[in-house]
């Protein structure tokens, strides 16, 4: 049930997808991997939209060089843990939701525990090795993974529904080299917003998702493009999860 304050807070969404839709968001637990540039946008919009439980995980502390894009964290947060800073900001945005912020490094060993009680995974990581851990966990638990990544003016996003769409490894079989990437806050804004929109639509069961579609944003030319993805019959992650060729 939505209380009177919630009905008022979410009134512009309720006129979009009804109280039933809002209740669905309230019942959804979202795992947000990372409280950096993408994680800031994702967590702020998910908190504001009323996802009932948000668990955000990051192992780092806030640095001055983060502040051009990581809008969860403010100047006074420099030196504090991103998890604690995230919790403060998100609870300030929406006290009606439950926010769990954990200062942890995501690993194969702890991912199952971190995902406990979560219905969806938001990819806000800055590297592919950890993304592959999220991918495997999503396939194993059969919960969706909303992928996003950025570099400078460029970004990409796709929605992974285990057993139905290409997984992250199907589309990106190998991790690109790790480099210090340039980052513009507004690029995080574009991609993170797309990821949240996808998550909202998934929960509501409305619209069309970025299923088997890799969306590409080029802020330099202000253009959006997409390419099709497909499940790879020889994907090792799908095979390990027992999901190979299930849709064929």
């Amino acid at each position: 049930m939505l209380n009177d304050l919630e009905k008022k807070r979410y009134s512009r969404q309720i006129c979009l997808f009804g109280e039933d839709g809002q209740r669905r968001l309230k019942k959804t637990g979202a795992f947000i991997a990372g409280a950096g540039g993408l994680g800031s946008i994702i967590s702020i919009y998910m908190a504001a939209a009323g996802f009932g439980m948000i668990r955000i995980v990051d192992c780092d502390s806030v640095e001055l060089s983060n502040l051009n894009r990581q809008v969860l964290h403010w100047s006074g947060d420099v030196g504090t843990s991103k998890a604690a800073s995230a919790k403060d900001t998100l609870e300030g945005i929406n006290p009606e939701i439950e926010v769990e912020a954990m200062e942890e490094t995501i690993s194969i060993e702890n991912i199952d525990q971190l995902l406990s009680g979560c219905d969806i995974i938001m990819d806000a990581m800055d590297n592919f090795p950890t993304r592959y851990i999220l991918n495997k966990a999503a396939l194993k638990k059969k919960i969706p993974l909303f992928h996003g990544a950025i570099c400078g003016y460029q970004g990409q996003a796709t929605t992974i529904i285990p057993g139905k769409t290409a997984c992250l490894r199907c589309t990106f079989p190998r991790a690109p080299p790790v480099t210090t990437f340039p980052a513009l806050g507004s690029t995080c804004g574009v991609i993170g917003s797309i990821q949240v929109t996808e998550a909202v639509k998934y929960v509501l069961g409305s619209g069309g998702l970025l299923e088997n579609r890799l969306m590409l944003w080029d802020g330099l030319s202000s253009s959006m493009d997409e390419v099709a993805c497909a499940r790879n019959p020889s994907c090792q992650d799908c095979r390990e999860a027992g999901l190979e060729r299930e849709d064929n």
Partner: protein
Amino acid sequence: MPDGSRKEMTVSVASIEEILKELHINPVEVVVAKNGKIVPEEETASSADELKIVRVVHGG
């Protein structure tokens, strides 16, 4: 091409891997869509195909 430019190549049949090598592009840094669909490096292409080489970004 990853920088947004277009390049025409004349090949009979070659693997994506060979085409990337010819273009001096590190295959680890890109995914390649053949006629709009991402394909593995082992896939082959000819002059009749349109390839889109997308640089994979990893930041967050």
